[in-house]
């Protein structure tokens, strides 16, 4: 008797616990479902619709948009979109590598400084990213335009032809991306360096004579989780970047984000834009998944990734 009562009681508790979960979580969950999941699904549906005469989606369903994205159009196959895709991948890769090259020593250097300075140094790295993206990019437009000291110097070194500026160009886009995402790499790397097991490093220094090998065998593997986290934080948003190529690229640096945005903001083809968005989503999830796998193999656990 007592036992059944207890079970009944426990059952009731479970029910009220579930209700509690539902009550606390549902407003937010519903909000995200209604205002993000539904819109995303709608966008995906748009990708399968026909492009109307003036760029709006229509029935019937079709795969035209994906064919167009792959370059098949009215005039046979053309490589324009492929160029855009490759350019996005290349810019993302280049920017990520450059960010790592800058961020790695910086993150290390901060950990070697005195404790009371570290918070301030991190803050100094992060503060520029608190300003608006448009303003930051505008700052670079001012710096790189023709006739500015930087452009003149580049001309004297023969890096750019006379009378030209460093902006607009693909170089300016890369620079803008590196500038924009540097803090996202410094922070996780800093966290990794701070947790560095110095005993291991000491042992490695005794074991291997050369500091390069000691670094490679003892330091680098320990910072890898931070590096991976940083790569995800840099590469994914860089791949979908819209503002920087638009302002600094001058028509030569179009990336996937611009291709997608132009279909909506330039009023030409919603289904094509939606198909491009799907491509971007797939790339995002592949990136996340790959990082997760690598992260797990490294034994860093799941929290490494996000």
């Amino acid at each position, binding site marked *: 008797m007592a036992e059944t009562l207890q079970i009944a009681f426990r059952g009731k508790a479970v029910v009220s616990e579930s209700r509690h979960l539902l009550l606390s979580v549902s407003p937010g969950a519903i909000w995200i479902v209604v205002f993000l999941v539904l819109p995303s699904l709608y966008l995906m549906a748009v990708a399968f619709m026909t492009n109307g005469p003036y760029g709006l989606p229509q029935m019937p369903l079709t795969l035209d948009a994906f064919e167009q994205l792959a370059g098949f159009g009215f005039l046979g196959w053309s490589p324009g979109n492929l160029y855009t895709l490759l350019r996005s991948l290349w810019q993302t890769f280049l920017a990520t590598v450059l960010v790592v090259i800058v961020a790695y020593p*910086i993150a290390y250097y901060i950990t070697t400084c005195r404790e009371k300075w570290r918070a301030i140094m991190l803050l100094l790295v992060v503060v520029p990213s*608190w300003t608006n993206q448009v303003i930051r990019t505008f700052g670079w437009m001012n710096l790189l335009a023709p006739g500015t000291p930087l452009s003149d110097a580049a001309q004297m070194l023969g890096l750019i032809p006379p009378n030209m500026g460093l902006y607009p160009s693909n170089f300016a886009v890369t620079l803008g991306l590196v500038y924009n995402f540097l803090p996202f790499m410094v922070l996780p790397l800093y966290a990794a360096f701070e947790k560095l097991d110095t005993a291991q490093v000491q042992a490695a220094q005794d074991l291997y004579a050369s500091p390069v090998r000691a670094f490679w065998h003892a330091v680098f593997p320990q910072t890898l989780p931070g590096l991976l986290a940083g790569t995800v934080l840099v590469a994914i948003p860089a791949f979908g970047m819209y503002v920087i190529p638009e302002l600094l690229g001058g028509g030569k640096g179009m990336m996937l984000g611009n291709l997608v945005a132009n279909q909506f903001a330039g009023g030409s083809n919603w289904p094509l834009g939606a198909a491009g968005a799907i491509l971007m989503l797939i790339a995002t999830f592949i990136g996340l998944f790959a990082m997760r796998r690598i992260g797990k193999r490294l034994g860093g656990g799941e929290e490494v990734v996000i």
Partner: protein
Amino acid sequence: MKKRTLQRGLSGFWWLTLVFLYLPLAVVVFFSFNAANSAARFTGFSLRWYERLLGNEQIISAFWNSLVLAIVSSVIALAIGCLIGYGMYRHRHRKLGWLIVLIYLPIVLPDIVFGISEMAFFVSVHRHTGLLQPGLLTMIISHVTFQIPFVALIVYSRLVGLDPTLFEAAKDLYATPVKRAWHFLLPTIKPALISAFFLSFTLSIDDFVISFFTSGPESATLPIYIWGAIKKGVTPEINAIAALMIGAVALAAMLSLLFNRQGQR
């Protein structure tokens, strides 16, 4: 000896990086005081672009739009996100996979996909029902959507960091859940709520892409205004307005430093 050269090299690199990080911002501020209408030559100190700002109705209305958008969306996101964070904490031993996916979705979705999804959705809802006309309301909805996860995660991690026995003690102390929430929970997570509010606020003020795609005729925010002005052909007024925004960020940075110091004491 070797170590010292390495350290010296690193320190040099650090200062170079700081120049890299602050040069573009410094240039904007510097030229905002330029007497001439030029980004290449500085002809003299002048405040005339700031004076022009004050007379520009559009900039002033953009400023208010930015502020209202950031405050309203942060307040809503705080309420909703706080609830989720607490729910996640209370039920952290259950499988909440679906919820985690839902919460990370707004964070991992590329801005541009986020923006156009919202836009396409709002437009088609508006076409069929007449509701959700693009404007401040649709912007608030979108901003709340990307703020919720951050609030939830901050609140969650604060709760996880607490001593579980505290909850038991609170249970003994206060009879009803409402009292418990009011007298124990909210005061305990107050620092998390404050930082979540500031983060939401910053995210909202910073956002351009999502606002750009969900705005209406009267709801341009400062970044949207600046974007339009750049697209139209840069005028020195943009330097002035951008310089003011950079100044606000610098102020916020100093405040957060001060706040941190006090927290440590």
